[in-house]
């Protein structure tokens, strides 16, 4: 008997929609390669129908997620950080492979991503205090303004940094009670699907985060024009490009809130409130004060 080396069991990279990991309904896949051209995986190539399904999943999850207490949402986001931390090496390996960076840089990106989830987790129960207001109106009325989720947010994640980019567009959208359909382009698919696995084991309710891997150029127009999507983050689109403009025009059809891409955006910098605010509606409630 000759000694045999054991072959590894490879992961099938699928989409993450409504808490499940389906293949693309189109049956298509694409090859994810390293910057050097080496084969990494076959990822599911999401179609417009997958996008539609993801929006449907996000919509049905949204009221429940919004209704969860801010404390609960914060804990769920923190749980994502915990799960991510535990898979630190796995993510670092994947980042190093798909981005072609060394492991140290990859680890730095994972750490930054974990820290970012923790940062946003802490925001859930502070948003209304920071962004809300008790308004002193000139009359016998109690009047308070509070930030409320806008609904379903489509985010186009940047190609790089893969994990930090995904994290930085998904976390700010969901922390306030929105649900997300994220497009993870090209090689980003690899850490994205692993992030989906993190979501699936982090108490994130099904449908709150939906991940589509494939081509931004193919999927974005469908999401930008989808009338049941309330907001659009164009992070993954070239600033000033024809595509950015076209998507914004498509989004105008139902007056989506649009975050335009910005040139030279530094994903490592303190993100501030800029990615949370656009996805929060200020709701002002009035009531008379009387006996």
């Amino acid at each position, binding site marked *: 008997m000759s000694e045999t080396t054991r072959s590894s069991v490879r992961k099938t990279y699928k989409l993450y929609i409504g808490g499940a990991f389906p293949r693309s309904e189109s049956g298509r896949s694409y090859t994810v390669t390293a910057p050097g051209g080496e084969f990494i995986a076959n990822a599911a190539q999401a179609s417009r129908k997958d996008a539609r399904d993801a929006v449907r999943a996000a919509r049905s999850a949204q009221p429940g997620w919004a209704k969860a207490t801010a404390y609960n949402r914060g804990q769920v986001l923190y749980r994502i950080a915990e799960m991510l931390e535990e898979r630190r090496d796995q993510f670092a390996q994947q980042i190093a492979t798909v981005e072609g960076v060394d492991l140290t840089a990859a680890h730095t990106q994972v750490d930054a991503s974990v820290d970012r989830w923790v940062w946003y987790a802490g925001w859930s129960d502070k948003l209304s205090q920071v962004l809300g207001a008790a308004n002193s109106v000139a009359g016998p009325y109690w009047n308070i303004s509070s930030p409320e989720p806008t609904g379903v947010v489509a985010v186009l994640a940047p190609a790089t940094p893969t994990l930090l980019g995904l994290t930085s567009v998904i976390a700010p959208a969901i922390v306030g009670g929105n649900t997300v359909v994220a497009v993870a382009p090209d090689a980003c698919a690899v850490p994205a699907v692993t992030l989906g696995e993190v979501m699936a084991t982090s108490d994130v309710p099904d449908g709150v985060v939906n991940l589509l891997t494939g081509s931004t150029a193919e999927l974005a127009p469908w999401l930008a024009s989808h009338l049941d999507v309330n907001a659009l983050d164009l992070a993954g689109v070239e600033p*000033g490009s024809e595509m950015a403009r076209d998507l914004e025009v498509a989004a105008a059809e139902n007056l989506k809130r649009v975050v335009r891409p910005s040139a030279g955006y530094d994903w490592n910098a303190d993100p501030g409130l800029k990615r949370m605010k656009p996805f929060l509606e*200020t709701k002002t409630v009035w009531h008379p004060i009387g006996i």
Partner: protein
Amino acid sequence: MANTGIFEYAPAPESRSVVDLKPSYGLFVGGEFVDGSAGSFKSVNPATEEVLAEVAMGDEADVDRAVAAARRAYDEVWSRLPGRERAKYIFRIARIIQERARELAVLESLDNGKPIRESRDVDVPLAAAHFFYYAGWADKLAHANLGPDPKPLGVAGQVIPWNFPLLMLAWKVAPALAAGNTVVLKPAETTPLTALLFAEICQQADLPPGVVNIVTGAGATGAAVVAHPGVDKVAFTGSTEVGRLIAKQVAGTAKKVTLELGGKAANLVFEDAPLEQAVEGIVDGIFFNQGHVCCAGSRLLVQESVAEEVVERLRERMKTLRVGDPLDKNTDIGAINSAEQLAKIRTLSEAGEAEGATRWSPPCELPDRGYFFAPTIFTGVSQAHRIAREEIFGPVLSVLTFRTPAEAVEKANNTAYGLSAGVWTDKGSRILWLAQRMRAGVVWANTFNRFDPTSPFGGYKESGYGREGGRHGLEAYLDV
């Protein structure tokens, strides 16, 4: 014996002699009235169809001049002034509005057709209040919780509607100036006159030339303001249709945009509601300002158990509404702003009848001249009817019913709009439950159509984005 005849109320007209109308008006650019380069148009009193004045029709060249004046004023004066100095100019404007309140109110009613009671008691005082409120912010921007060093955006292009001409001007101009921007404002085609009087107020206040510029005109003029490359910020209040065009127009630019658009608000009345006040709220919600209100409570959703009673009380109350001369102090419902709007209201009302809803108006005589429409309610309306979905922007109420709170919420939110909502119930926990679920930027519980400068206003979904009023309204004019 009843004395039925006594309280017919003799006419109580407000004198229009306080208003000194010129036969024609130019554009207000760089602190002066200048001739427009194109033609002119007429502003008409919708209650009498008489021409009030000829007003310049601004074209692209005029807009360009106005933007240049605004830019110059921004670069050379306004952005360099300390906040406390800007504040004093804005306070001064607030005071002059108060001083000339009667003149403004009469002019507003003449040009717009709204009852003098409303322009006198709502529009003008609230406009002054907005300037007063935002004046106080001018030197406190660093304390607005919008970051350590908020900066103005530059030149703001503002396009406002005809339903609250002066008030919408105030909502736009006051925060823009407080934040340190300069302004090019395009008033509505049918109601330019109070904006032109406001230009005089700016002169009286010695506001530096070019800080506020007013370019009168029609849709094309507004489009030129929005499209102008020298405009850094676009603020628009008006229809969703035009808002959509603007959103497309500014796509791919760096312009910051706020849009306050249409609505089809649900006004929810539960069986335990304070019914008498609810009826007032319904009346106020739909008949205030002839229903020309983006946040009007145009869909009454009433719990089936009290539907009949509420509608009956509403009908009785509607019989006391007085329709007619906007300048009569006892008029509750004035003139529809334009022949065009009147035609739209008629078309949609006819659609309501054709679709099988039951139409009712109290007996009331409408004046022979001018554009008038009797207050109208439709009962037996279903969600599928056009009058339950489309914004009528007139004194027309659609009445629908619901059985449970969940059904009420579902029906209320079943619209592409999301500007406002009303909730009437005596149960505190239910109010909060409902307020949480309404997909609307303003929720009035046991009241309706309340406005205040401190209080953010603006919509969800196709009712637009951004907020006006309060700290939030300030943010719309700052780079934070």
